[in-house]
């Protein structure tokens, strides 16, 4: 790694200015668990690294109007220790906590996981299922964008070059609702997801599903919101018939590649299995 300038701005405005000034030579860093690996392997050669962790708005979890605002650079470990967040959005927290090892948890963030734009990012299907919204700031000001609209392809996002993902907003958790995330890896830990699936459901007092979102990862160039799978659950008791429809809808949405981590055929099969299992867990949580 040759000559790199390290900057650690203390406000979003300073970070936006630094990013604007450095242009394409700059890389933003939250936990750094992807960026440093890319720098080490020569796949990223930034001249300027802008560390976002010293900006208060980007770290920590705040409760606002019943919902949550999660700083984009907040580590997975901090999310796991936030009891209220974990109680409200267990699927999001369990997905974030699946990223890498304990050591990686000490650093890796939701913002980094999303903006690294891997289709296999664990937290992204969970955030999409949860209906999370990104707070993005750039020279033109602040805008909000649903998580499912951020990734545009492997390594690519819809953020412009001088924009910074500041935080995620998680909505108020409705009564009788729950979420869950599952992934398949060959080992028990340390692998990149071969397939991931996040599901969030809300039930009425009779146990009928009133809203559902299903998202899958590592089965397409980006994490997918599978609207047909969510629709298959609405109006049902999340019973076997509905779950079978979820499986079909998920399989239909998958367009995976075969690579060193899994074949396209395997990914498609397992995506359906995991979506069904996650839906069952989400329903149980909603009923609890």
């Amino acid at each position, binding site marked *: 790694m040759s000559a790199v300038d390290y900057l650690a701005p203390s406000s979003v405005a300073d970070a936006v200015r630094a990013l604007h000034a450095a242009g394409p030579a700059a890389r933003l860093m939250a936990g750094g668990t992807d960026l*440093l690996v890319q720098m080490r392997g020569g796949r990223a050669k930034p001249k300027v690294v802008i560390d976002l962790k010293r900006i208060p708005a980007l770290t920590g979890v705040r409760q606002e109007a019943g919902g949550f605002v999660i700083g984009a650079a907040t580590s997975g470990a901090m999310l796991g220790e936030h009891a209220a967040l974990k109680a409200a959005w267990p699927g999001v927290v369990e997905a974030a906590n699946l990223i*890498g090892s304990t050591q*990686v948890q000490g*650093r890796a963030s939701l913002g980094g996981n999303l903006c690294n734009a891997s289709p296999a990012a664990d937290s992204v299907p969970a955030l999409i299922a949860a209906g999370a919204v990104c707070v993005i700031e750039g020279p033109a000001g602040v805008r909000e964008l649903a998580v499912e609209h951020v990734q545009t392809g492997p390594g690519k996002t819809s953020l412009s070059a001088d924009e910074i993902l500041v935080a995620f907003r998680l909505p108020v958790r409705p009564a009788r609702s729950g979420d869950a995330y599952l992934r398949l890896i060959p080992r028990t*830990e340390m692998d990149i997801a071969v397939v991931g699936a996040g599901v969030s459901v809300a039930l009425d007092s009779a146990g009928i599903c009133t809203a559902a979102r299903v998202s899958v990862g590592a089965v397409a160039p980006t994490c997918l919101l599978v609207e047909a799978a969510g629709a298959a659950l609405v109006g049902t008791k999340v019973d076997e018939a509905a779950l079978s429809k979820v499986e079909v809808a998920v399989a239909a949405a998958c367009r995976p590649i075969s690579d060193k981590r899994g074949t396209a055929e395997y990914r498609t099969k397992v995506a359906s299995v995991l979506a069904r299992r996650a839906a069952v867990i989400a329903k149980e949580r909603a009923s609890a």
Partner: protein
Amino acid sequence: MSRTVVNAMVNGEPVEFLAGGGQSLLDALRDELRLTGSKEGCGTGDCGACSVIVDGRLVCACLMLAPEAEGKRIETIEGLADNGHLHPLQHQFLEQAALQCGFCTPGLLMAAKALLDRNPDPTESEVRYWLAGNICRCTGYDKVVRAVMDAAADLRQSERPR
């Protein structure tokens, strides 16, 4: 090359060193401070041999930039023993033959310390999942897990009010 002065607390002592902007904390520890107890097994956060504790958080020193250490408290394997007195984890690793080549051992010990700092009575499963980021190719983990569980018991024993 742009290098910045970094001031940090390493194992309870203030240190000052020059860090390159793209240099990892691991390289700074090993090459600038000559604390070579933290090992590089992969450089990509996959093996845990460089595990250190920064402001109470377990991290891979290879996945942190050296300049980020400014103002931080860093614990490395060199600080685990207290003035020459081994930590109960170190004792148990020796007693139970929980190391063979010893290369992953510093990282495992720091990871285990971070666990016991949080959870004084972990289950076997909790120990195994917490240590999943520390690859050991020699032991098959059996004696490592036993040593961590027994060190936890030792620590609970010694901290129990009498």
